[in-house]
Structure formats: structure tokens, C-alpha cells
């Protein structure tokens, strides 16, 4: 298959896919056809086409796949599609809850509340509503509590490929030494 034809197919898939286009999904769509060019290479070609032809969108690598996103400079207009304010921002409580789940997953509600020191029902609900978290199975222990995890939508929301791309959690020792420093 020629590169040009391949570019068109990938473009069609990017327009139609409801979730990031992964290498595996790309292969599945091609079926029996033999393709030597890796997806990443086709993407690079398309990306530079879009740049040189001044398209209003780019290809973003997210959740180990590729998706079309609008270029940042059009935010002023695009946000009008959603509501007066555009995307809703997460509250501090929701961000804290999300941070705990990200680094501790899978994690129970009790474990989250033990760290935050407050009941976290309503943040959990918001995060489930927005599909940034999902319920995934139960703990093995006696209580068999529900376990929470981050979702693919979480990766998209923060533009990450995997949870491993998150900034590292600071070590307690670091916090302590800094605080001691402040005191002196």
C-alpha cells in the first residue's frame, strides 16, 4: 500500500474514532492487508501536512493512541460550543481525590477519606459523572469494598499517555527537609 493511501486511511480513522487510535486498533482496521509503515510514521506525515496547510487541528498522542484536537489558539471560539465558560474546571476537593486515586489505584473510598481526612462522596460522584474515574472490582479483604481507578478519559483530560507520565509524588523526607529549612 502506498504511503498516500495509508495517510488517507489513518485520517479517516482519526475522524471517526471515538477514542484514541492505538496501534492495535489500527492493525485491526486494516484487516488482512499487509502494511510495513508503522502508525507513528504515518501520523508524523499527516501532522506535517496539517501544519503546512494551516489546518485548525493537530494530532495529539494520548492514552497510547492518537486523536484529533483543535489548536489552542481557537479556544476563544470553540469554548462557545459548550457553555458560556467552556470546560468546567475541577474543584480543589475533586483534584485532591483524583490525585489520590491516580497514585494509589486501585483504591477504596475509605483509603481516600483516610488521607484527605474528610468524606469524599461528592467528589467521587463528580469524578464518576465526568468519567474521569471508574469503579473496577472489589478489594479482597473482608469488607470487599469497591475499588476506584482512573479511566482513559482521565488520560485524555490531562493529555497523558499513561498514568506513569504523571509528575512524581514528592517523598515525605523532601517535604520535611524543606519545612525544616523554612524554619531556620
Amino acid at each position, binding site marked *: 500500500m502506498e504511503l498516500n493511501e495509508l495517510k488517507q486511511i489513518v485520517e479517516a480513522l*482519526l*475522524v*471517526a*474514532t*471515538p*477514542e484514541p487510535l492505538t496501534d492495535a486498533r489500527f492493525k485491526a482496521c486494516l484487516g488482512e492487508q499487509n502494511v510495513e509503515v508503522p502508525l507513528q510514521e504515518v501520523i508524523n506525515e499527516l501532522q506535517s501536512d496539517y501544519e503546512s496547510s494551516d489546518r485548525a*487541528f493537530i494530532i*495529539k498522542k494520548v492514552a497510547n493512541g492518537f*486523536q*484529533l*484536537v*483543535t*489548536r*489552542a489558539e481557537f*479556544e476563544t471560539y*470553540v469554548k462557545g*460550543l459548550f457553555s458560556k465558560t*467552556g*470546560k468546567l*474546571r*475541577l474543584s*480543589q*476537593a475533586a*483534584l*485532591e481525590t*483524583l*490525585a*489520590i486515586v*491516580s*497514585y494509589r489505584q486501585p483504591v477504596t473510598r475509605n483509603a481516600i477519606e483516610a*488521607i*484527605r*481526612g*474528610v*468524606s469524599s462522596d*461528592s467528589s467521587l460522584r463528580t469524578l*464518576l459523572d465526568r*468519567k474521569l474515574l*471508574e*469503579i*473496577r472490582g472489589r478489594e479482597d479483604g473482608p469488607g470487599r469494598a469497591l475499588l476506584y481507578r482512573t*479511566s*482513559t*478519559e482521565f488520560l*485524555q*483530560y*490531562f*493529555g*497523558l499517555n499513561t498514568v506513569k507520565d*504523571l*509528575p512524581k*509524588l*514528592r517523598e*515525605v523526607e523532601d*517535604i*520535611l527537609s524543606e*519545612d*525544616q529549612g*523554612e*524554619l531556620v
Partner: protein
Amino acid sequence: MITKSHRIDLDMFEGPLDLLLFLIKRDELNIYAIPIAQITSDFLEYVKLARELKLHSAGDFVLMAATLMKIKARMLLPIEADGDEEIEDPRTELMNMLLEYKRYKEAASAFENIEREERPHYYHIPSAWNPQQEDQTAILEDVKLYDIMFTFQYLLKNYEEPVTHAVAVEEVTLTEQVGFIGGLLQANTRLSFSDMLSKFESRLIVVVTFLAILEMLRTRQIKVKQSKLFDDLLISRGGKFGT
């Protein structure tokens, strides 16, 4: 100590740990050796001022107040040197909680920054494409377990006879609960805190009752004793009881 900061809205804080971190930072306290008496009284000032605080977190603030008071009581007890066993500082657990919370609070602000950077990009949302689609009006992008639960609960609500919940809005005031505790202490010399709380069904009453105990402690109408850390609190008449 409230004079230092004037009045600060408890709404600013995500919870009791957040408030404690704020107090530690404001007063440049050493987190290794938190002056527990000072921080307890500051903390209680805030909780008292915030009687009209967001009720859903009130219980958590009250719980922390109880924990602080326990630690404070424990610090006053003479240390019994028991062989070579090292005696743990009663504040250690609190310190660990504060540090752990601080890590995630920092992470949350990192998340906020990423959120801000990602904000201007909007993902392409493809129009529905599914030849077998039986119902074009509502397509769910991606089904989660939560959708299943939510849907079932929603259906049940519409299906079952609407149950009229007899939610008697319990109007409990601080004064009423002060009177209530006073009454109990007329009849009994000692009250168990946990026994008393277990009688209440709503957390709102628990919270107000606890605030009443704090108030009565302050005005010395009652005394509160605790024999061991994390033991039940025993309430008895104070020097100014009945005045």
C-alpha cells in the same frame, strides 16, 4: 489566637488536615514537634466560629477536634518508662497524616496546572457511526459500571411506588443540646461520650452535641476525662456546673 488572623472562613479549607497545615504554616510551627496545646485551641476556635460551616464536613472537623484533645490529654500524662520499650510520641500519627495529606495536596496543584495547559485543546468528537444502531437518539460513548448502576437506580426510582420519606427535619440548637447534657448530668454523675452519641441517628445531632460539649468545657460546666489514648471520653460535672 484568633486575633492573629482575624476570621477565616472554614470554607477555605478542604478539611481538618488542610486547616491544621494552614495553622502550622502560619505560625511557623515545627511539624516534628507540634505544640499540641496551642494548635488545639486554635483549631477549636475555628470550629466554634464555624458553627454555620459546610455541614457535610462538620463531622470531620469535630472528629479531628476530639483527636487533638486526646493527644493533648495523653501529652499531660506522666510517661511510665516501661523497660526498654520506646514510648511513641502521641503526635507521631498526626504528623504522618499531615505529611501524607500534604503530598497529595501538592499533587493536586500539579494536576491543576496540567488541567490549565490542556484546557485550550478540544478533542474531536466524531458523529455517531454505527450501522446497527437501533436507537439513534442516545448513544453512549463508553459504558462504565457506573452507568449500569446509575441507570438501574434511576429506573427503580421511576418504577416503584414513590416512598414518602418521613424526614422530620431535626432542628437541634446548641442551647438545646447544652440543656440536654446538663439534664443527663443531673441524673448521672458520669456520661460516656460514645454511649451518648450512639443514641443519635443523625450526624447533624452528633455534631451539634459535640459542639455543646466544647462549649460546656469552655465554660467549665463539665469535665472530660480519658484514661487512655483513643479510649472513650467520660463526661462529668465541672466546677461551674449548673451556674
